[in-house]
């Protein structure tokens, strides 16, 4: 056992009798990595439960020693902390909302985590961590690996009757807000950089003045909302120019080509968004023939779609000889992220067919997943680094698997729907998605045959 100790300047390394794991540890230090035993889901549930917190692991008993002194050395004056205790088959713990300084804590929240459910109760504790059990308060004894839970609390938490429960591991985390002033500052900076980049963007080779982006997708996926969101970001306040609704027949009946003005100098932005009628089941909604006409630029602004009858060359709104500037340079498939798995068989077939047609005529496209903020478990703080969120990753893979789009072409946004004020976090998602669309349009223009 001595071999393990030489890495540290400590003559005494308190192995607990409860820590069976440590005995077999190899002598390499990195194998004793200080990582939590919580699963991703467990951690996420706790973080959300206590108000969108970020956890920093400060203390892990099996590594740092089963003693109150060791714990206090690392966890005092760190702000609010959460202690997680791993017993035989239950994860429980205690949350201290005020700055923990050792000694007396007035109010604590004791919780038990079962699967995805948390039951909690408030309590008082004079000394949270003790070396000896002296009273009927809630307390954790690290030396003996016991947690003492008074009967009335145990009853409220639906724990089996008993007084002391033994545990194998104890971890303490510092709890910070995921979105703090520091992050907001950084995010605003990033947003402004992105905004500037979009304003000065020039389509590849100056072939066109404005890039045309077509929004396609099932009814109610959030196509018009995405336009509203983009407009809002450039305008500086939330706009609802395009009517948005969940009407089963689709709110946008007309083909609309929305050009946007920049708030700062009043100039037109170098891109336009084209909003179409939503795709419906079977014969409803936009028909596939119309999509091809749209892409090639045969349809002009404010054309009224007819889901029964595609546009013909005799229509007043039909452009017979579209130029490069009339056609679509980037197509976007918009889906509600929550309905990806529930798309009907017919819808999936329709989308695959449209995609097939697009590939045939070399139309580059991306996927936009909206409503990410209404996903289960996802909080506002998660939106900052949304592509690394496990549930979002799963959704992206589902889109890749079910519909065949490549993973790097799948974008995630959260549209402005009920908000009054802009939020830098949402802005960044919207602008990054837009930037990717412009890049895609560049790739398309570059690839376009010169003739």
């Amino acid at each position, binding site marked *: 056992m001595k071999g393990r100790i030489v890495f540290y300047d400590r003559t005494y390394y308190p192995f607990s009798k409860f820590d069976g794991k440590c005995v077999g540890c190899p002598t390499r230090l*990195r194998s*004793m990595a200080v990582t939590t035993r919580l699963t991703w889901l467990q951690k996420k549930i706790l973080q959300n439960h206590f108000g969108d917190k970020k956890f*920093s*692991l400060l203390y892990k008993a099996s590594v740092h020693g089963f003693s109150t002194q060791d714990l206090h*050395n690392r966890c005092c004056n760190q702000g609010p902390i959460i202690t997680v205790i791993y017993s035989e088959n239950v994860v429980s713990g205690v949350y201290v909302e005020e700055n923990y300084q050792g000694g007396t804590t007035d109010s604590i929240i004791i919780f038990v985590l079962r699967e995805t459910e948390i039951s909690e109760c408030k309590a008082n504790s004079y000394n949270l961590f003790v070396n000896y059990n002296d009273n009927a308060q809630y307390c954790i004894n690290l030396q003996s690996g016991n947690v003492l839970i008074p009967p009335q609390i145990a009853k409220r938490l639906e724990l089996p009757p008993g007084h002391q429960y033994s545990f194998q591991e104890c971890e303490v985390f*510092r709890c910070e807000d995921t979105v703090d002033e*520091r992050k907001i500052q950084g995010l605003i900076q990033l947003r402004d950089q992105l905004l500037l980049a979009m304003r000065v963007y020039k389509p590849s080779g100056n072939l066109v003045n404005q890039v045309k982006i077509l929004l396609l997708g099932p009814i109610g996926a959030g196509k018009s909302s995405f336009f509203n969101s983009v407009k809002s970001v450039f305008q500086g306040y939330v706009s609802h120019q395009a009517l948005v609704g969940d009407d089963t027949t689709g709110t946008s009946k007309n083909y609309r080509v929305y050009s946007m003005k920049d708030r700062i100098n009043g100039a037109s932005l170098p891109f336009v968004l084209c909003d179409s009628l939503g795709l419906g089941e079977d014969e409803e909604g936009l028909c596939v023939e119309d999509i091809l006409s749209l892409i090639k630029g045969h349809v002009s602004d404010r054309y009224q779609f007819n889901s029964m009858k595609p546009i013909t060359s005799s229509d007043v709104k039909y452009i017979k000889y579209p130029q490069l500037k009339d056609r679509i340079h980037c197509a976007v498939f918009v889906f509600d992220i929550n309905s990806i798995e529930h798309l009907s068989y017919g819808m999936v077939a329709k989308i695959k067919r449209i995609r097939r047609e697009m590939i045939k005529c070399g139309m580059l496209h991306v996927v936009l997943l909206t409503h990410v903020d209404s996903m289960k478990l996802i909080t506002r703080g998660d939106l900052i680094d949304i592509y690394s969120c496990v549930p979002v990753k799963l959704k992206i893979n589902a889109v890749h698997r079910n519909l065949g789009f*490549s993973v*790097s072409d799948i974008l995630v946004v959260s549209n402005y729907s009920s908000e009054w004020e802009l939020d830098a976090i949402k802005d960044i998602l919207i602008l990054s998605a837009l930037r990717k669309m412009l890049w*895609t349009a560049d790739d398309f223009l570059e690839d376009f045959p010169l003739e």
Partner: protein
Amino acid sequence: MAVTTKLTWNEEACLINQLGNVSLSLLYKSSVHGYSMSDMLQRYTCEGPTITIYFSNSIVGFLMLERNHKQTIWFTLRKKKDIIEMPTLLLNTVLKTTTEELSFLSYCGETIFSVNLKAQLIFLNHMLNAKIRLPVNSCSRANISECEVFRVEGIKDNRGYLKRITEVTQYRNKLLSDLRAYKPYADLVSEIRILLLGPTGSGKSSFFNSVKSVFRGRPTQQAIVGSDSTTSITEQYRIYSIKDGVHRQYLPFMLCDTMGLHDSEGGGLCVDDIPHILKGCVPDRYQFDPCKPITSKHPTYIKSPSLKDRVHCVAYVLDINSIDNLSSTMVAKLKQIHKEVITCGIAHVVLLTKVNNYDEVLQVNFLNVNKSTTSQKQVMNVSKILGIPIFNILIIGNHTSKWESDPEEDILVLSALRQMLRVTDDFLEDLPKEETTCGYFYYESTSCRLSQIYC
């Protein structure tokens, strides 16, 4: 006072990114936990890899893998225009602690860095100061306003990690500039044409996208990729030339993307098309017909291709995960194609894609492929099937599933490309004099022989 780092969010993001998407947990912050050496040292115990950052008028930090590890990485973070830079330096050091001071000594006993927390003073020797290019006005001794200790989680436990992260970007940029400056042998042609061949979904178009993305400095998806159960997404013959993102010039190579090969007959790329492609008779954007090869009667058929129209290098693109399950028809097709390529005397390599442990492929200095990788079952297998020596089997990662670029992955893509160009140079050098001078050549078409086999 809240225990939050003094780093800005952007600085933190840069640091995390540079270290390979690790996660940082702030353990100690001197202004909250007291400027006491023993307090700080205590936080290092039993933590594994840590980062310590000192804030004076500039930022100085170091990464230790463990407390007594021989090597430390030194870095600073500073803003240049809107971009945060992080120069790094890898040093062999010895850690020495007293009750007041923590210092790092070189092997000859010279003090490289020392800190007195109580006095809030740090000392940097000249070498360190110059190497990580701190602002000139900061003298070697500086007052610090804050000291923070972080635990680093998620460091890859491979050999040479520290050396890698300090040198990876540098090496990537060197490769990039080497390739930009490349000139084909004796200027026989201005652009090398590399033909990508392989089963459907093996990543031919993705390889093109990866190469383009690296040179562009942003993700691009010019070639549409993705899965569509069985059929090939790419149906046209495409000759892609790539414009450089920096100099806005065309790069000295083109990638020729083809339709995927199929397991079954009558699907995917028609094997009889290949001789025409190799000779350079097939024009850009030619629509492949799986059942019928191109003939000289086709309106855009290039009747008399010159050396520059020819394919100069063939890359067989194979998904490493499917090597063991290649169907016998596929193997037969590949062997036939390879025979054809050898007959034409064209340079050839194998490109294995979608390697998951791509970060272990290269040696610490990035110069060579690890022995353990080359002896992998799949690599040996491919070498046996096609009879291509192991040094011409190139390995790349899976670019399509990522958002951010990864310098190590870029290095693999660029190394693969460089290897292709080197092989091609050998081919050009080896060309008979007549072929290089007259600009037009002819060799016996083997297409009828091939069709006999598949009828």
